């Protein structure tokens, strides 16, 4: 195959209305040469997984600030599995340290807390997708 452009789906499940963080990360990924499909706010797990299938993305970035990750992230991971969508999932936002092991346990590849350098996220995605 020729050189394939990396495609990333960026989505924000849950009800909080803060999209600054996810937009900053989306732009950084775009500037690094990736094609970023931005879904916007208030997406349900079903909407996110359906979009991931249709867009045939290499990775899925989730952002959440509301604390609902404990319910929504496992739901998303479950639906991905059910639909045999094998992609890298990473997350960002406000996620307490004590929740991180549980999330990694359900195959979320990395959690980026507030103040993460976008360069680190870009590097992470590039490395993971290349594998």
């Amino acid at each position, binding site marked *: *195959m*020729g*050189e*394939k*452009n990396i*495609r990333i789906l960026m989505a924000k499940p849950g009800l909080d209305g803060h999209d600054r963080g996810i937009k900053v990360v*989306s*732009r950084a*990924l*775009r*500037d*690094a*040469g*990736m*094609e*970023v*499909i*931005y*879904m*916007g706010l*208030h*997406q*349900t797990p*079903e*909407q996110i997984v*359906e*979009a991931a*299938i*249709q*867009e*045939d993305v290499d990775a899925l970035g989730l952002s959440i600030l509301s604390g609902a990750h404990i319910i929504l992230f496992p739901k998303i991971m479950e639906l991905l599995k059910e*639909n045999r969508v094998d992609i890298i999932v990473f997350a960002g936002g406000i996620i307490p340290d004590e929740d991180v092991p549980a999330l990694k346990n359900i195959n979320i590849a990395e959690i980026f807390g507030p103040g993460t350098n976008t360069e680190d996220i870009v590097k992470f995605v590039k490395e993971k997708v290349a594998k």
Partner: protein
Amino acid sequence: MAEPDIEVLTTQLLKGDRRAAAKLITIVENDPDAVKRVISRIYKNTGKAQIVGITGPPGSGKSTLINQLASYLRQKGRTVGIIAVDASSPFGGGAFLGDRIRMKDITTDKGIFIRSMATRGCKGGIARATGDAIKILDALGYDIILVETAGAGEAEVDIMNASHTTIVITVPGLGDDIQANKAGMMEIADLFVVNKADREGADIVVYEIESMFRFTDKRGWKPPVLKTAVIEAIGISELAERIDEHFNYLKENDLIGERLKRRVEMEIANIAKEVMVRELEEIRKSEAYKKLIEEIIEKKTDPHSAADEIMMMVKARYIEK
């Protein structure tokens, strides 16, 4: 992409498998050598879908219109494929594909398939692979395919060639510089939509467009000018009716075949050009090419004779494949 994979995916596609459609669109976007193997397997199964192009300046409401129109068409029992094109960044080639933000209502409907696509350097408002993605959704069996262009705001002839009906959207308050563009849009529009009619100035825009047509109506079809406020779903049912009316007009006047002929003519020329350019780029990396340059400098040959030789190399390379 290996041959068996493509065979499996195209077989699944023809059975209506959406995941196969998604994977095949990725292949035609990324792998020029595999495109032929994909399209040649499905081409017989294309030509059933009604294809509608939607173009207009950034922010005019194309995605919102598609969201509403697709919902409406679903209520009428039709399945809808959507290809939403956005521009790639000229720096680094990345893209921010944001049309889905406006299409939330229709994301989980199994009778709708949405694919975002970056232009990847193509200028005409759609990508090189858009035409092939349309064929894939057509072969998947969707009744109607809506294509949103990247909205360069210029005359986007490519979308006109790719679709049965081209909708040009405009909005009030764009200012005078849009006038010149409107003239270019005249040639490609089968239907005009003046959106954001909930705002002031829509009637003036309608009047302006209609008056431009008073003297330029050479065709049998006079593009209607519709007012919509798609954010409130106002004008959607009439729009849907007019789209079908135009499609019927094409059918009744044997113009579908004519459009197809025009599309195929453009398409094969473009494909052949791409193949040649690709082969040429390979040859430019070769030793033989470097040697030709030396020979020209030494006056053993001249640039034109060398170009002839290069064309022979292109041919030889292609036959070898």
